[in-house]
């Protein structure tokens, strides 16, 4: 290998990942839709003013899709398109935030359990078993009912129900790494446990964890929508897809668009995060390198 070649190779690690990711059309579609969602969050007001998403106009209620209202209007005459666009903010925030919080809490617990093993491992894993033995939707419902509805409590509830999954994933990733010789070599070099976890274990476990986190976003978007549908999540008049579905139930026959568009938004965003996760996994897996 020539010197120039190796230099290029180093700079190209991200590019290489991107090159492999790009070859997967489904993953590209997923990524495109995720980018659209992010655009909706960042530039929501430019695309459709927030006023039209919350301002009521009884005269224009329950209209079908038209040039003035792309997705029609709901029972209060609010623009469904604007509500879907602004709903992305709540959904994405919920999905991403809860994943991040669950990932950091679960990551620390899982790394500690996997690295030290023994009694600490037993205690952490049995606690997680207790949490997983309760259906996650029921658990979040119970937590939200206890703390009161609202976006902050929703995040807490969903996070708690999601932590065990991350603890498991991180623990198993860590377990497969701590047995490797370079960890022993690091110990023999006098590296402290904390430093070994941070410098040597976590960076090697990051691939599967990133993939799992991406997949988890879609799951949590669904769960957040589900809780909002049950009236436990985002409170009106703030637009949220799950809550919009719930509002639309009564008008399903006369105005099916009320159900179709937010429903599509939920399905497509969940699907696109899944596709992206799949694509990332394939791109990160060196065995599929070609």
């Amino acid at each position, binding site marked *: *290998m020539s*010197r120039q070649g*190796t230099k290029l*190779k*180093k700079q190209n690690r991200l590019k290489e990942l991107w090159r492999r990711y790009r070859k997967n059309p489904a993953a590209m579609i997923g990524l495109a839709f995720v980018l659209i969602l992010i655009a909706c969050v960042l530039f929501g007001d430019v695309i459709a003013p927030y006023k039209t998403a919350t301002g009521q106009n009884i005269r224009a209620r329950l209209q079908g899709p038209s040039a003035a209202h792309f997705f029609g209007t709901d029972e209060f005459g609010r623009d469904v398109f604007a509500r879907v666009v602004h709903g992305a903010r709540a959904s994405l925030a919920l999905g991403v935030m809860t994943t991040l919080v669950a990932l950091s809490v679960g990551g620390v617990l899982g790394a500690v359990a996997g690295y030290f093993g*023994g009694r600490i491992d037993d205690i952490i894993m049995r606690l997680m078993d207790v949490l997983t033995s309760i259906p996650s939707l029921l658990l979040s419902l119970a937590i939200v009912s206890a703390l009161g509805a609202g976006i902050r409590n929703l995040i807490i509830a969903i996070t708690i129900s999601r932590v065990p999954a991350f603890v498991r994933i991180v623990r198993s990733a860590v377990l497969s790494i701590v047995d*490797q*010789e*370079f960890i*022993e*070599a*690091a*110990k*023999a*070099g*006098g*590296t*402290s446990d904390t*430093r070994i976890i941070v*410098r*040597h274990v976590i*960076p*090697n476990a990051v691939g599967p964890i990133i993939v799992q986190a991406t997949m988890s976003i879609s799951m949590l978007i669904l769960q957040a929508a589900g809780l909002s549908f049950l009236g436990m999540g985002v409170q009106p008049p703030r637009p949220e897809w799950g809550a919009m579905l719930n509002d639309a139930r009564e008008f399903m026959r006369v105005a099916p668009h009320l159900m179709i568009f937010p429903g599509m938004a939920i399905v497509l965003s969940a699907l696109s995060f899944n596709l992206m996760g799949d694509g990332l996994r394939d791109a990160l897996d060196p065995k599929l390198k070609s």
Partner: protein
Amino acid sequence: MAEKSKELLRVDDLAIIYKTDLETVHAVNGITFSLERGRTLGLVGETGAGKTTTALALLRLLPERIGIVTGGSIRFDGEDLMSLPPTEMRKIRGNRISMIFQDPMTSLNPVLTVGDQIAEALVLHGEGEKARDKVVQAKVDEVLSLVGIPPTRKNEYPHQFSGGMKQRVVIAIALACEPDLLIADEPTTALDVTIQAQVLKMMRDLKERLDTSMILITHDLGVVACTCDDVAVMYAGKIIECGTREDLFREGRHHPYTVGLFGSIPDIHSETTRLSPIGGLMPDPTNLPPGCSFSPRCPRCMEICRTTEPPETTDGTHKILCHLYGEGGRSR
């Protein structure tokens, strides 16, 4: 140097077991040896003889809860390693005692550049504040060129190096802090023969330049002949013969196991189609035979060998643990 005693490491009657729910493995059964500054000790023996266990015990890295030291002492430069608190032990690891592991393919972290990994060892042992420091980076360059790798390659990842180059990196990490003692656990086993010779020569040169003592674990007597000053032959957790390299390689009185080891090396001058191995297998370490543990395989086994542990016979620096040369045994 003049102030310090010549003896760097002294291991006395060290015994180690691996204890699980199902069985107790007697890995090391009372070994005694010492190592002087600047010398190399070869620890020879077949797989499962307890060589690596001994090395791990020196660094107190035996698997937790399973590997238990049941007796004996390890004194390093006058300090009792067994009673040091963990934080003190950590300061010794990598700084004063370093270890090179068998397989260079797996003993480097795949996601860090080799430069970062060397810098980490330096920073850990107080050679600088941050890995990006000029001092640290200069030292990284120096260490890399010491092992014959151009410093321009320090920003590359382990997978971009060949096996021999990786082992050089591993050696560079181990030597970065200029340790007093280097433990090399079969450093060349995973390499092919031409690279082996290069790496061994390099280790020997570096050892001389840095005045490091070394424990070389190997099962290759050729490696021993060209690198070691002293040799200890291990069998079933015991040192059955030890002495200087000359003691071991000279014709004369030897433990039957050592004789078998030498006998199993093919001789370039005689024409044979088959190698002559030592018959049988190492005894089950969970259930060692009474008396001499080599007795079931020994071609010169006597009645006494099966019942009584052999005494130690000393001839100058040469020690043998065998009934053949003890009182009441035949000589020669």
